[in-house]
């Protein structure tokens, strides 16, 4: 699947396109198929997102899993500081990234 990601302009938070807005949780990301670039341009123009781009992801039972490790790190947080990630209490979160 293809999903759309970027950063919130004011906060810098990593965000994922949900179909209607932007979420901080990759599990909320939808398949944008071939329409990602157009959505990115529109959303960036309206400043609802900064620096958006389309990525490949695998559909999994837990939700989309970005194909590239860099985006998985973005999705969760630094592997070396689990306490600073989106899932500090989840001992398996790190292995989802790696």
């Amino acid at each position, binding site marked *: 699947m293809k999903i759309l990601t970027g*950063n919130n*302009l*004011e*906060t*810098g*938070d*990593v965000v994922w396109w949900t179909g209607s807005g932007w979420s901080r949780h990759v599990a909320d990301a939808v398949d944008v198929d071939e329409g990602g670039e157009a959505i990115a341009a529109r959303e*960036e123009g309206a*400043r609802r997102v*900064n*620096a958006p781009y389309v990525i490949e992801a695998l559909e999994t039972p837990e939700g989309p899993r970005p*194909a*590239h*490790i*860099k985006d998985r*790190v*973005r999705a969760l*947080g*630094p*592997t*070396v*500081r689990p306490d*600073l990630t989106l899932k500090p209490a989840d001992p398996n979160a790190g292995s989802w990234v790696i």
Partner: protein
Amino acid sequence: MYKYDQYDQAIVDARVEEFRDQVERRLSGALSEDQFKPLRLMNGLYLQLHAYMLRVAIPYGTLDSRQMRMLATIARKYDRGYGHFTTRQNIQYNWIKLADAPDILADLATVEMHAIQTSGNCIRNISSDQFAGAAAEEVADPRPWAELLRQWSTFHPEFSYLPRKFKIAVVASDQDRAAVRLHDIGLQIVRNDAGAPGFRVFVGGGMGRTPMVAPEIRSFLPTADFLSYVEAILRVYNRYGRRDNIYKARIKILVHELGAEEFTRQVEAEFPLVKALGLDAPEAEFARIAAFFADPAFEAGLADELDLADPDFAAWAKQNVHPHKTPGYAIATISLKPVGGIPGDASADQIDLMADLAERYSFNELRVTHAQNIVLPHVRKADLYALWQQLEAAGLATPNLDLVSDIIACPGLDYCSLANARSIPVAQKIARRFADLDRQRDLGELKLKISGCINACGHHHAGHIGILGVDRKGEENYQLLLGGSGAEDASLAKIVGPGFSEDGIVDAVEKAIERYRAIRQDGERFLDTYRRVGVEPFKEAIYG
């Protein structure tokens, strides 16, 4: 250390308001990201993997307790309770909001700090020797010249849109603790036969995709010509540096493509034209600045011996303490490399503690080293034990300076959008593998440096052992390099063979080190043995 006058303060304050205006125009849409990006970079603000990252300048690595406390405050107030000290003596915060950035800069300005030109295609933080003003063997304190360069380079109207970033380092000792020959311009203060001070000038060093050791282009530049000459170098670069390919845009490429001789000829031709403009600061200005770097009020007649009865203290004193130019004093290095920790990171509490210790034990002064540690430059020997006890209680007393677990590591793929692989976990695993301090001390000086991508912020080209993280078909992979040095014996590490997985690189490092131990001769460091025997014995040990 240098203190702002009304002019310095006015300039920094104006910059804060300028950036506040620019941020507002970005948020309102008056500026596109493409237009805004160079502006925010010139204020040290990156968009990284998790958030914006702010790189705060610590000019030539020197700061005082008040400034250190502000760095802790910034970490708590605007970030997530910690900061990362970098290989250019700056500090980075990883979780910054764009909307907060102007206020952060305003807070920094109240203690004479800023984030000016810590990124962007302009002249970056001037780096220097972390032992400046304290080491016995320096010709002079290099920092007054570093401060002159800082002011000269700040908002230089001709050189703010260079082909690429520009890094300058200044030292004043034959022992190069700032890696000057791996900088765009490296300056070493020397004295001529008449005893007058001047500079050896190196141009065109650097790491990254095409590492190069800078050639010397001038063996003696009188200090009175200093800024004019540097201006001439920058003008040649600004006019003729490549702008067609960002991987070929550093001055090292220009020097390499022209050849050092032709490049030097062009600089020497430009120099008299620039000199005629009268833009060198007068001697009075140098004297004004130099006065800020006068020695603190060292006491005379202090005890020069140490009580080494406590073996843990003795280990730290032996490894992390350097001789001072003044009897009774010592230079103490605080390790930010606890085994299994994140190299260069410090919590807000640790930063506050270091500020307190500097105030109490080091005339209020601290230094940041390019190896991502902190130095207290002027500690009475009589105070070292009490200092060590407090460092020990805070996890800041690892006695591993220049040993194998004193690793330089960039933030890597855990933080950086440029990275291809994670570097911190590799550093942690290697440090844990060699956790035994007796083993580390037996191995002696061993500088291990890890970069998560070819940009080489971890200085892997300059490591006795260097590790480069790469992306191999979507997977993290690590190349092993041997034989680099960032000191006065500068050399570039060479890759030994095919890359490894994360666990594989740790094993490969251990094999290389054990091979060193097996074949070393008396007094040889790892680097010396490598230089004596070449890569083959190591290759054979690693790949079998």
